[in-house]
């Protein structure tokens, strides 16, 4: 039997004016287990807490109920007060007689009655409370960053600067990501490579950062503070230690017909290649699908020309297993496929391109060496049409429901750069809305209109019709003039919607991080915990969480780093003790609970049991208390009632129900 003390707070007159606190204390004494009851002006004050502590010691209390304000306010206060008096903090329950009683009722008799019942429920619950102890788990002081774009690089640098080891895993042969493909950046128009390359070099040179390029995360196990990750280092067929990055192999390679991924397939590359000149590491990889030696056994030219002897056709994939305390996802984005948008003729004409492709066309290292040319015939265009919101803001199932956020600004940038470099080119932008929230953003867009004479037309384009003479007939609407417009263009640029990198689904599943219908990773709280995944120890950086531009990405990358550092700085983690617990005697091992667990906290073990003299092996659920957040979804789904939630057990809740309905 418990020895329970009940402490009724007046909260000045907040409670006492409407609730007869003396009566509540008096009635509480009649409840089973209650050996002490008192009321006091301010229970949360130091004097109030001292009274509680004194009673705990004097009367050997095993549990206490404080009738006061909301537990959201002072539960922790009373728990730590109890703990200081030697009582387990989880033997404290709060009856909320302020927010849920005195403040909403006027009649004293009625409010007092209700307060008595609320106290009764709390007493009934505390009668069934058991002391709980937070668990402890160790923290591995190393972070993993998945994705080596600007988000991943920034996060890694920030974590490494705080003194922790960081590994970056990047799928492609070089870090740099989308930003490395951009020509200029808004709203300052500085060159993307000029600001990105130093960051790439800094990451590569950082003594605390290890970069795994051409590598993918293969498996993740463990939990916050103690993840174990398998990283597959795909075979490059080039020894990174020996390669000097001279580039002769790429020059001499006879297989030069593969489409360049980096240039969005607008030109070709050799079978042995680095994606771009400033690639880090500057070590090529061999594309086995294109390599003549790999396909036929003949050739081997790269091996012959390599002075460093770095070519190794026998290289195999390698699995690196590493432990991490924190994982940051920075998997970025891609543009959507335009197969559903026949009306824009993207698949019919080479001169209809996406904005990302235009970035490559404008770039000095791109397929046209930076000259603005039609990709069909290399001619200089005179008339360029930009179409906004291609696949963004779509309620149908062809595109994405969200605004891709960056298109308005980069289109203004493109328009401006073209008009600046080629004043003879007319630029028309068809838009639905121009969205420019951001520092100096609207000014930037207005400059495009006012200083550079870009023709903005409010209205969408219905159709792009390739003409026999190679021109593109653009049929659009001008909603302000209420006119339909037919415009002959030489090039059409589509502001294509962006979507999370499709690989993120696989990664999210491995991390048990949740993902929304658009494949964006879900944050723990949309406003207050925007860079944390609901899965403890997993953080979000960049566009994998939602559309953003570079400054926002960098800011979020830093924020994710700080959260990761906050975790790595701890030696041990205290875990919430109100976790689910499976009764092995009752568990059927049916796996239903694991299906509803949002944290992947439930696993199954085969245990040897002796059941009435029969030895058998039984599959039972085991809850990892470091991962469990205590939602209780499993407890209800469990058909046998084997799963229960500590601190909110079935019997405790039923006792409260009974006390209220008595």
């Amino acid at each position: 039997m418990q020895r329970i003390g009940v402490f009724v707070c007046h909260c000045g007159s907040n409670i006492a004016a409407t609730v007869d606190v003396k009566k509540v204390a008096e009635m509480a004494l009649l409840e089973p287990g209650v050996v002490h009851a008192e009321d006091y002006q301010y229970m949360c004050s130091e004097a109030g807490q001292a009274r509680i502590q004194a009673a705990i010691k004097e009367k050997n209390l095993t549990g206490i109920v404080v009738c006061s304000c909301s537990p959201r306010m002072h539960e922790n206060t009373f728990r730590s007060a109890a703990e200081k008096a030697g009582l387990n903090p989880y033997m404290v329950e709060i009856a909320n007689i302020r927010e849920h009683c005195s403040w909403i009722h006027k009649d004293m008799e009625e409010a007092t009655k209700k307060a008595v019942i609320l106290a009764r429920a709390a007493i009934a619950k505390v009668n069934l409370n058991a002391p709980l102890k937070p668990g402890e788990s160790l923290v591995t002081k190393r972070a993993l960053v998945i994705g080596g774009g600007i988000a991943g690089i920034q996060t890694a640098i920030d974590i490494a600067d705080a003194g922790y080891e960081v590994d970056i895993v990047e799928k492609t042969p070089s870090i740099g990501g989308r930003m490395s493909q951009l020509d200029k950046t808004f709203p300052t128009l500085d060159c993307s490579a000029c600001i990105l390359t130093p960051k790439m070099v800094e990451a590569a040179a950082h003594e605390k950062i290890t970069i795994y390029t051409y590598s993918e995360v293969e498996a993740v196990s463990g939990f916050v503070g103690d993840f174990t990750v398998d990283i597959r280092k795909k075979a490059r067929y080039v020894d990174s230690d020996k390669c000097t990055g001279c580039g002769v192999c790429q020059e001499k390679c006879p297989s030069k017909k593969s489409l360049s991924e980096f240039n969005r397939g607008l030109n070709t590359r050799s079978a042995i290649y680095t994606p771009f000149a400033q690639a880090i590491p500057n070590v090529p990889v061999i594309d086995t699908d294109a390599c003549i030696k790999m396909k036929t056994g003949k050739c081997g030219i790269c091996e012959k020309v390599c002075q460093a002897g770095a070519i190794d056709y026998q290289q195999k994939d390698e699995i690196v297993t590493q432990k991490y305390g924190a994982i940051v996802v920075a998997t970025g984005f891609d543009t959507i496929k335009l197969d559903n948008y026949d009306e824009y003729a993207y698949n019919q004409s080479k001169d209809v391109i996406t904005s990302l492709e235009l970035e490559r066309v404008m770039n000095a290292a791109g397929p046209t060496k930076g000259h603005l040319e039609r990709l069909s015939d290399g001619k200089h265009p005179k008339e360029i049409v930009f179409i906004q919101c291609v696949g963004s803001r779509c309620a149908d199932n062809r595109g994405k429901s969200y605004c891709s956020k960056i298109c308005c600004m980069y289109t203004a940038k493109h328009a401006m750069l073209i008009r600046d470099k080629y004043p003879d080119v007319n630029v028309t932008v068809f838009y639905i809305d121009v969205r420019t929230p951001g520092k100096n953003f609207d000014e930037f867009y207005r400059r495009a209109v006012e200083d550079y004479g870009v023709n903005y037309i409010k209205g969408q384009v219905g159709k792009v019709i390739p003409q026999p003479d190679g021109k593109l007939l653009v049929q659009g609407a001008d909603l302000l003039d209420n006119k339909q417009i037919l415009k002959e263009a030489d090039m059409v640029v589509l502001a294509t919607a962006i979507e999370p990198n499709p690989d993120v689904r696989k990664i999210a599943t491995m991390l048990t991080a949740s993902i929304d219908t658009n494949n964006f990773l879900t944050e723990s709280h949309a406003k207050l915990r925007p860079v944390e995944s609901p899965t403890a120890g997993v953080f979000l950086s960049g566009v994998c969480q939602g559309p953003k531009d570079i400054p926002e990405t960098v800011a979020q990358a830093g924020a994710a780093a700080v959260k990761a550092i906050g975790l790595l700085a701890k030696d041990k983690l205290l875990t919430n003790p109100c976790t689910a617990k499976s009764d092995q005697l009752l568990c059927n091992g049916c796996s239903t609970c694991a299906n509803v667990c949002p944290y992947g906290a439930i696993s199954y073990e085969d245990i040897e049991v002796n059941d009435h003299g029969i030895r058998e092996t039984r599959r039972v659920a085991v809850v990892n208390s470091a991962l469990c957040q205590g939602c209780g979804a499993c407890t209800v789904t469990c058909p046998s009632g084997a799963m229960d939630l500590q601190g909110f057990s079935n019997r405790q809740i039923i006792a409260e129900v009974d006390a209220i309905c008595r």
Partner: protein
Amino acid sequence: MSHVNKAKQIKEISGVNPLKCMKCGKCSASCPSYNEMDIKPHQFVSYVQNEDIESLVASKSLWKCLSCFACVERCPRDVKPGKLIDAARQLVVREKGQTYLSPDEVPELLDPETPQQLLVSAFRRYRR
């Protein structure tokens, strides 16, 4: 029937929720009969939303729409003005006793250049 009811009826017949429109104008940009119309396809949506059905059914546009459904196909918001126009037409047809044209009115309106197929499909549409 009040304006409100008519607007409601159009929404019901078409299954269209005009509130979903984000006024991008892709319908008007797609419309092959745009220049013939007095009320433009994107305006159809706001007329229904504002419950100004009188103007809508009195408009030339109602009978200029070819039901090519380019706007239905391309509308990014699932608003589909073509369906609204079709519904407005049905409203008129219903009020005219299921017939917009009586057969004896037809010869006078005929253009000898008009292909037979078009006539047949027109009858299919206007005589429900």
